[in-house]
């Protein structure tokens, strides 16, 4: 995945995005995507970078207004972003972002 906030000037750890198995075919079979970043980025810009490379995957996570789909949950280091600052939640290099679908349906 491409750098999400511009050119890197020194080595920093990647942001790691973990995908559930059901979405992995939309990312070329990968379960983990890594995003180089030279500083904190928002979840929204991280997902923009995901969508730029994997457009269908991006549409599975957010609708065309940029809102997270109702039964998609995203955790940053174990905290669900809706309880943080939503799409504006900051993610720093080295942090882990986890995508999990809600336990919902019938």
């Amino acid at each position, binding site marked *: 995945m491409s750098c999400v906030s511009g050119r890197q000037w020194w080595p920093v750890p990647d942001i790691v995005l973990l995908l559930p198995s059901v979405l992995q075919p939309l990312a070329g079979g990968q379960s983990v995507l890594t995003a180089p970043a030279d500083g904190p980025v928002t979840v929204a810009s991280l997902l923009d970078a995901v969508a730029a490379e994997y457009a269908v995957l991006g549409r599975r996570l957010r609708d065309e207004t940029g809102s997270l789909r109702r*039964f998609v949950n995203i955790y940053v280091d174990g905290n669900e972003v809706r309880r943080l600052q939503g799409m504006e939640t900051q993610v720093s290099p080295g942090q882990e972002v986890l995508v999990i679908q809600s336990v919902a349906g019938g």
Partner: protein
Amino acid sequence: MVRMATASETFVLAIGTKKGLWLATSPDRQDWSLTGPHFLMAEIPSIGIDTREGRTRILVGVRSPHWGPTVAHSDDLGATWTEPEQGAIRFPADTGAALERVWQIYPDAGSRPGVVWAGAEPISVWKSTDGGEHFELNRGLWDHPHRSEWGAGYGGAAAHSIVVDPAGETVHVAMSTGGVYRSLDAGASWEPRNKGISAYFMPDPNPEFGQCVHKIAADAGAAGRLYAQNHHGVYRTDDNADTWKSIAEGLPADFGFVMLTHPRREGTAWVVPLKADGERIPPDGKLAVHRTDDAGNTWKHLSAGLPDHEYNSVLRDAASVDTAEPAGVYFGTRGGTVYASADEGETFREVASHLPDVLCVRAAVVAGA
């Protein structure tokens, strides 16, 4: 009478359910082979089978409760599916809206190859000129001044029926809830056309718009004639929807969701009555299709081959006709049983059972096997 497909033809029945798509094929509309589920765990509320331009394209509206809606298509009878990267239907940013569900996929007439219409939730109409791969929002309806007064039916607020005049520029759209709207300029502008249709559930039971129309269909043999199954009420118009009159007399109930018309013959239509608003079951628990051959003046009860007892309803798009002679009639229940008739409803045969709730059924005679 058994009408065999020619050696180069196959009958195809696409069955959209709450948990995926099944495809049935048959050489004679008697014996069916099923494949599926395709799109397991996603609901399929809309299907269009486009047999124009020398190919068979199956378009499906797909909606995952988790991952949202999309439109996919297959040009090889479901062996492979294609989904446009950016999505076939995508609300423009200035609308601030997001697609919730595609309720209708309607390939236009053969004289307009490549044109496919879609109806969606939130209430919107879309038009594609590339065979359903990319759609453009109809701004005339989206920006309609009535929009703020349209409501949502139990299933959502959607444009669920699109009827396009194959020879002209007239388009009728039905929405829940808002009623019937007509465009005489190929969708550029829209006017409500509900005179004569009751909205008993509103303070004014005869409003200009706001009716809860469940399905509309055009008479293939009579210009300007359409039929409507409403939330209580079955109607016909002979003047292009300027006025409607009840044709419910002779039916066991005026409630239901389905309205089908014959692909060629004037005056023939089918409904599947349900007892009432509050009791959405076949009257007396006995499932039956009713057909008129005189534009709704009289109705014929048709239940040969259907079960003695059935308490599931049939939803608005869970029924279809094919274009064969005699026409085939198909429908599925919310109990997951699908029936086919090769003789215009005189007799039915079970195609599939124990599927998830059937949301949409579409049938076609296609080239190839």
